[in-house]
């Protein structure tokens, strides 16, 4: 009986979250925001400025430099992993492969997997890892950079949605989240990368995002 009630609750939660998405056909925007008043053509206009992913500089599995500019005009999923991680990373890779296979033909879609162990995860190690996952081309980049930089951007920018939702202190970087970023580099969602149901929701949300007018 308890299971049944629980199931109904989950269904209800799923239904209501779907409904919100369907109703608005848009996703929430996470992070801080501020109102900025500018003077345009003699008129004062107030605009909302959202938090965006700041500049970064990384190297991908091909040894190419990847900066924030390479993600201009792209919808992308960011995550944090390391190649020798025995616990949740294979699960995340398995789930992220589903996302990859769904969207790999889209020019404006990317996946950015950040290594949090750059000492071990050199360019050749990342390349080998990508090869073993059957990942080729330029849709899914496995990147590494300075460890502090990756941690900072993870905690201060990518994982803002997780921080807002969680009361737990720290450690978000290790929890296997997939973060959805839009073409304006605003965070639009965070999903538990070890949970196939949340990953299905991510795929649905990417489609919702692609349909937004300013994401075309």
């Amino acid at each position, binding site marked *: 009986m308890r299971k049944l009630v629980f199931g109904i609750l989950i269904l209800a939660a799923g239904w209501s979250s779907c409904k919100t998405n369907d109703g608005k056909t848009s996703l929430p925007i996470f992070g801080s925001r501020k109102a900025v008043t500018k003077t345009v053509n003699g008129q004062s206009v107030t605009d909302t400025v959202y938090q965006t992913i700041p500049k970064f500089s990384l190297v991908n599995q091909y040894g190419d430099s990847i900066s924030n500019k390479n993600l201009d005009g792209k919808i992308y999923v960011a995550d944090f992993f390391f190649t*020798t991680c*025995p616990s949740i990373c*294979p699960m995340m890779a*398995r789930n992220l492969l589903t996302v990859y296979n769904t969207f790999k033909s889209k020019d404006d879609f990317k996946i950015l997997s950040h290594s949090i162990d750059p000492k071990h995860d050199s360019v050749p190690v990342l390349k080998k*890892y990508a*090869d*073993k*996952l*059957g990942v080729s081309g330029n849709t899914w980049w496995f990147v590494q950079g300075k460890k502090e930089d990756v941690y900072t951007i993870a905690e201060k920018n990518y994982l803002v949605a997780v921080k807002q939702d969680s009361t737990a202190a720290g450690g978000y970087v290790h929890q296997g989240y997939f973060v959805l970023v839009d073409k304006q580099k605003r965070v639009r969602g965070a999903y538990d990368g*070890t949970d196939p149901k949340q990953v299905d929701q991510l795929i649905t949300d990417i489609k919702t995002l692609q349909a937004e007018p300013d994401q075309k």
Partner: protein
Amino acid sequence: MMAIRYPKSIVAALGLSIVISLFFSCENNNSLELKRYYSEGAAIYQTHCLNCHAADGSGLLALIPALNDSTFLKNNKASLACAIRYGLKRPIKINGKAYDENMPAANLAPMEIAQVITYMNNSFGNQLGMVTMDEVEADLKSCK
């Protein structure tokens, strides 16, 4: 006193039926034991193996091997316990493909290792029967 003499055929039938029933009760005990090991092993698999080897034992492409290579499991029966207990640091060939990533050690007791091997040996298309705790304890003594 006069001995009662039963016809030979009845004695033979009785004897045979005792032997048969003993055989079956034995087998029932064995299969019950296997089922117990199997269900305990399934829970251990979920906690310690599933993240990497997947719920259906399919592994992860060229990164993590599948657990459905019955020939490998049979040929390496005596070293499975060591691989689980102490991890695996040498390349192996599964289903004809080479795998060279390290497998981390799982700190499991001999009984748990026996149960999880029994689970693996009878899942994912394998039908290799059970491995007992005694066998695991013996195997663990000769780990390389």
